């Protein structure tokens, strides 16, 4: 199963994330489990604080101007002072991301199922989809603003949905099609029809591909929402907040907004990871063994 995973990684982002994706435990018990957890996470926590300390020390020691690189202490001060504003903006950006993510994933899964079921549809639509995937989709944002109106939340959700659609659709289709021929033969020997093969072999086989692509899509959806916001629309969203504070030379505020976006991105990712654990206990246990 992990061999299949390696084929799925479409962007380097997943590779980066897969370094720690298998390691978040759901249930832990006993002192040995705690020790194991400690061994696993202590290095990451230490590294995080080391980076922050070096950052702080570097900016103080060399007197780096705040508009070049704000100090972590300034960023944290802004983060707590402007907390209500940035979290409110973050929430509205999150709605765009999650809404677009849900729409994009839904359409991707429907396309994948149709492509796996009907060869004609597959041969017609897949090459087109792969060609469209090469398009820089963020460039569509002004056009979506024109279609839906820049203040309409669907203008942002639309960009997010299109960004999410392609990796999820391409990977899920691959998962539905790259099944073990021996399993298909087994199903034939017990007189299973195409729908039964789909439900009992192809769909379970595609789940690891589906979740891997969704994990990529969590980060993509926030990136797409913020970029779409740069092209205009309501002012009380993260993208506009970052642009406005940067124009006013309030860089610690911009950094604090980026911090909020990062926290939301990690949370979103972890939620998909938990969903993966719930829906595919067998897969996670296989990985844990290896």
């Amino acid at each position, binding site marked *: 199963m992990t061999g299949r995973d390696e084929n799925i990684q479409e962007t380097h982002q997943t590779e980066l994330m897969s370094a720690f994706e298998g390691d978040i435990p759901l249930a832990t018990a006993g002192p040995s489990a705690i020790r194991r957890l400690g061994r696993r996470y202590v290095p990451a926590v230490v590294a995080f604080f080391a980076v922050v300390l070096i950052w702080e020390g570097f900016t103080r020691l060399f007197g780096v101007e705040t508009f070049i690189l704000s100090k972590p202490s300034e960023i944290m001060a802004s983060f707590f002072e402007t907390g209500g504003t940035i979290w409110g903006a973050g929430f509205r950006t999150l709605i765009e991301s999650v809404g677009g993510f849900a729409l994009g994933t839904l359409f991707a899964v429907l396309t994948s199922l149709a492509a796996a079921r009907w060869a004609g549809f597959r041969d017609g639509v897949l090459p087109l989809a792969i060609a469209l995937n090469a398009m820089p989709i963020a460039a569509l944002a002004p056009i979506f603003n024109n279609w839906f109106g820049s203040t309409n939340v669907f203008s942002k959700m639309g960009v997010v949905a299109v960004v999410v659609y392609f990796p999820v659709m391409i990977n899920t289709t691959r998962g539905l099609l790259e099944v*073990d021929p021996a399993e298909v033969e087994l199903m034939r*020997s017990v007189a299973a029809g195409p729908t039964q093969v789909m439900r009992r072999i192809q769909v379970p086989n595609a789940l690891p591909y589906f979740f891997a692509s969704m994990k990529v899509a969590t980060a993509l959806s926030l990136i797409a929402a913020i970029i779409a916001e740069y092209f205009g629309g309501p002012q009380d969203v993260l993208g506009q907040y970052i642009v406005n504070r940067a124009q006013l030379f309030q860089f610690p505020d911009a950094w604090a907004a980026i911090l909020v976006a990062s926290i939301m991105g990690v949370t979103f990712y972890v939620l998909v990871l938990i969903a993966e654990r719930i829906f595919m206990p067998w897969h996670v246990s*296989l990985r844990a063994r290896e």
Partner: protein
Amino acid sequence: MTQAVEARRLGKTFGRGEESLVALEDVDVSFAPGDFISLIGPSGCGKSTLLRLIADLVGPDHGELKVNGKTPRQARLDRDYGMVFQAATLLDWRTVRKNVELPLELMDFGADARAARAGEMLTLVQLERFADHYPWQLSGGMQQRVAIARALSFSPSILLMDEPFGALDEMTRELMQQEVLRIWGETGTTVVFVTHSIPEAVFLSTRVLVMSPRPGTIGDEIVIDLPRRRDENTREDAHYFELITEVREALRRGEKSRE
């Protein structure tokens, strides 16, 4: 009486033109219900092809083939046979019990009937304690026993086995042979068993069909007139060794006639 399997001048060629390979040529066989038939021969002799023709996993090019008096396709759709492949082919995402239940799900058995039947089958292969394990938690021999339980879960009248113990070590293999004989005795199923091991074929079968390659044909048939109840002592029996010699010589004759 309707034969479990009956073939007349059965032939199968793979590929076309110069690249083509005659996998089977003019094969006539007749397997009686309750028989334990082994197909043995060197690789390329068409033994697996014959099994796959019976299973309707490939179609014949010429000749006639009847399974329980029906076309192989109809027999497959009627679930007249259960098949055990060389690899256990268990579904990773299902527990042992759910793997055994798979054919029953396709046949629309209710949940209770499925669970009861799977329980019986796991008792038959002595894996009831492992019902809730996932396949990767089992050894190769245990996985293959699950595959046998799955193949027998819907009580087919024929069990097709394609080198099922080829990947197992010798000790496990002998245990599995005992197991298969016991199951065969308890269920009365007709078994068609493909192997390249001479002792395995002799130990298990009522009849051994010796096949030879290029093109695949059936040469000698050796009736194994050992008592039906066989155990570890059978492996020490003088007549057992005579039969092994007989099969080995038949295999040599098959190869010589091609040279």
